[in-house]
């Protein structure tokens, strides 16, 4: 499957994502520069973590207006797969490809630690590799992961099944104590209505190989690659 990793000035997890897709999952991967206006035929687009445009104005705000995002929007509108990780998630929110917004972490600290996540959806292209209610351990590293929207919008998000990952205890219980940043309803990841665009704050690319001591993140990439390959097969 052809994968594209978007590089903004200030992206810093781009090579990690490239490595996982190319060397762990053996896929064809290309970097997409923020000024590109095409996706070079990529079927899976990943917006990596980092500090795109230095997080000037708001995290993701300026990146959301860069030329490549027009192509990413068209890809998403056509049902193409888009994954935003951490800063990439913030870019997707600012671009309007996902609902909601990020605020400063409630305790005002940059949070860098492993968290537990409960997979709320196991039928999405990105989560098919998970069991229902499966608990994952993934690292987070962010200052602005405090997900927010109006109560009505949050209710709609829940009703539509767009909450994909929630911060939880190791046993899967969703508690205030397991919420590292104050995110509304412990939300760590959401998808669009179509389920083809996913954003999450934790970093699956940092735990996708045994040598790193944790492979819980790999299933997200592997699921997307598998779903994409099946979709390509079905079209042929």
């Amino acid at each position, binding site marked *: 499957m052809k994968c594209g990793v978007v590089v903004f000035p200030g992206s810093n997890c781009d090579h990690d994502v490239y490595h996982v897709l190319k060397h762990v999952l053996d896929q064809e991967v290309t970097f997409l520069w923020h000024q590109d206006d095409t996706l070079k035929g990529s079927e899976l687009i990943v917006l990596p973590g980092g500090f795109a445009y230095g997080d000037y*104005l*708001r995290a993701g*705000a300026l990146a959301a*207006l860069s030329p490549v995002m027009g192509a990413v929007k068209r890809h998403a509108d056509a049902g193409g797969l888009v994954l935003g990780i951490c800063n990439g998630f913030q870019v997707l929110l*600012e671009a309007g490809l996902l609902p*909601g*917004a990020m*605020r*400063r*972490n*409630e*305790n*005002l600290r940059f949070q860098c630690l492993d968290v537990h996540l409960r997979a709320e959806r196991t039928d999405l292209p990105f989560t098919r590799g998970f069991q229902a209610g499966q608990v994952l351990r993934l690292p987070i590293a962010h200052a602005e992961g*405090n997900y*927010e*929207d*109006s109560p009505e919008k949050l209710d709609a998000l829940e009703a539509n099944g767009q909450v994909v990952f929630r911060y939880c205890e190791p046993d899967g219980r969703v508690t205030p104590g397991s919420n590292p940043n*104050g995110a509304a309803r412990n939300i760590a990841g959401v998808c669009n209505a179509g389920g083809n665009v996913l954003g999450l704050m934790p970093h699956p690319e940092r735990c996708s190989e045994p040598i790193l001591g944790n492979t819980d993140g790999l299933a997200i990439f592997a699921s997307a690659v598998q779903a994409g390959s099946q979709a390509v097969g079905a079209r042929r």
Partner: protein
Amino acid sequence: MKARVTVYPRREILDPQGKAIRDALNRVGFPRVEEVRAGKSFEISLGASDAEAAGRELRDMCEKLLANTVVEDYSVEILGGEGAQP
């Protein structure tokens, strides 16, 4: 003309930064401070002469970029300069 755009967290949303600043002000001898909302201010010079049109354009800028209206409100103030209304 010159304008000032102010963007601040929406009132119904907890502003963790403003709360920390309020707590610090309380600590250093300003116990009467009840609330602080921490926002951003932009001074914008605009090649425009019609204050009403400039106001519309500035609000459009807020909607498109300067504010994230999911969590922020904004206000626009024309400061004056050539063509500004008295």
